[in-house]
């Protein structure tokens, strides 16, 4: 597997008042990897996510995507640069249909402006048809092709998660960043999610995964970073991370450290 870094960030620091949320965090995600970011509650995982996607401004840090430096100063520019994300608390466009949700995802890769829309030019019509076709394709890709006409809020929980992934994929990301995609899923749904993520990787999209479910992360990820209290305590292959005493201590407390 190629290991040229797709995402390379270094020295990310973020302080919220008296809380040091991130302390000199660095990460190299190789092209085509599924990269796991784990850590106990409050470790700073979501803050890290928000920083690299431009939602929260860091105090310091260097950012590089696919060999080019990028400035995570606004969320829509990061999306245009090629990082798409999902949210820990699903954030769909609740009153739009599933298909429309994915169509919104095509926004950043399409051009049609108000004048072309009002005149319904040939180019606008062609683009619109293409958006619709691609959105439907993505719904089918994540396995909810028949639910396109339903309002997003009426979908089941697992399907909402899938829809959010489809919507993120619609922006043609180089890096797909998923914030706890398996949260609240049952075993069957998790299995299906795992298959979906593996398929997305096979299709050439690199994935950054924040997840609480250690079993899922260990089974799926090529590399894992463990974050605790805003610092990286371990970085490596899933197997070695799992055996690391510091990681076990962070998760289970000092008493459990020897018996993993």
């Amino acid at each position, binding site marked *: 597997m190629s290991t040229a870094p797709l995402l390379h960030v270094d020295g990310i620091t973020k302080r919220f008042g008296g809380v040091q949320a991130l302390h000199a965090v660095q990460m190299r995600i190789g092209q085509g990897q599924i990269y796991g970011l784990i850590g106990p509650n409050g470790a700073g995982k979501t803050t890290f996510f928000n920083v690299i*996607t431009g939602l929260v401004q860091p105090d310091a840090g260097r950012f590089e995507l696919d060999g080019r430096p990028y400035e995570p100063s606004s969320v829509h520019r990061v999306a245009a640069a090629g990082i798409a*994300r999902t949210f820990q608390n699903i954030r*769909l466009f609740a009153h739009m249909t599933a298909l429309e949700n994915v169509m919104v995802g095509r*926004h950043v890769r399409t051009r049609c402006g*108000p004048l072309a*829309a009002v005149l319904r030019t040939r180019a606008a019509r062609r683009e*619109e048809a293409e958006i619709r076709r691609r959105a439907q394709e993505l719904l089918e890709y994540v396995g909810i092709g028949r639910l396109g*006409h339903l309002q997003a*809020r009426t979908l089941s*929980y697992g399907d909402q998660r899938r829809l959010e992934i489809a919507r993120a994929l619609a922006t043609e990301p180089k890096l797909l960043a998923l914030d706890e995609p398996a949260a609240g899923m049952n075993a069957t749904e998790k299995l299906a999610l795992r298959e979906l993520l593996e398929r997305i990787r096979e299709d050439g999209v690199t994935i950054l995964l924040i997840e609480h479910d250690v079993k899922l992360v260990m089974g799926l990820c090529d590399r894992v970073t463990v974050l605790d209290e805003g610092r990286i305590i371990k970085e490596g292959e899933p197997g070695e991370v799992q055996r690391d005493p510091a990681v076990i201590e962070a998760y289970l407390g000092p008493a459990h450290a020897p018996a993993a």
Partner: protein
Amino acid sequence: MKPAATLAALSPRTRALAATVLIGMVLLVLPLAAGALGAAWVRTLAFAALYVMLALGLNIVVGFAGLLDLGYIAFYAVGAYTFALLASPQLTDNFPALARAFPDGLHLPIWAVIPLGASIAAGFGVLLGAPVLKLRGDYLAIVTLGFGEIIRIFLNNLNAPINLTNGPQGITLIDPVRIGTLSFNHPVAFLGLELSALQLYYYLFAALAVLSVLMCVRLQDSRLGRAWMAIREDEIAAKAMGINVRNVKLLAFALGASFGGVSGTMFAAFQGFVSPESFSLMESVIVLSMIVLGGLGHIPGVIFGAVLLSVFPEVLRHGVGPLQEQLFGRTLIDAEVLRMLLYGVALVLVMLYRPKGLWPAPQHGAPAAGSVDTGPGAVTSRSFP
């Protein structure tokens, strides 16, 4: 049941075509029928068409993009004063230099007025939009309310030190609409029909309203329309989809304002007179009531609301007075007072029993039992502790 069944059997395309033809015929025949009842009714219909344009414009801002605007009538005022200044003796009377430049006076033709009114109002839309980009909900409402009042107060006071707007007296002697050699201040014979000036205005306004509907429908179904709705639903998620929220919001303000501007120019030509008191806060509230009552964000509902609330006061005016005379021998409650009372009651009832308006957008897919609400709170409670 029979006609409904046969109607359903038709393909959607045929049905849409049939509806278009039907609506077109009604729009054409309506002023002739109303003309037989009295000129006041034709006037009411013409105003209804203007209000449809206003409501559609406000619907872009409030209904599509979810930005509550309580000062929308300011754009109507901007349009009206644009035309009033450029097609009346106001400027040439007060600025000798202009009078020398235009010895025949300023008389803009309609093909120049409509785009000009639209673009100047759009400029004001951006002017309002730019400082309020980060505001939402109540805060946005307060600022837009202030904006509407500022425009009105400016118009009211710009008669000194230089007399630009003629202050509270307003601007008079505004040209009627002229298309080629056809001037809208005389009746015209057409196909054996005598069309009054009012009826001519009605046809012009109805045509503009239909054009506005077409533009709104196309915008709604476009990439931009989806971006507006995405912002309305969840601004952060919209940003994460690569939508430049700032530009898209400004576009909503500008495009919404341009409808108000065109409507305003037509209002000025129609009345021949504008003054600041036509653009009070109450007017903004009425236009907002139209779209809320009709169905926020749903174009047919918005049109319905606009027609209902613009025709309804006239019905009251003609119905309530005589009715009270008959019942009590004199008028106890003035129609104007009763109108506000009924507006209030109607809005309260609609909010209670039809919170999405009288004609809301159809819901795709009924909410499944026990479905997850996507509000942040509801979902967090389900994620792992």
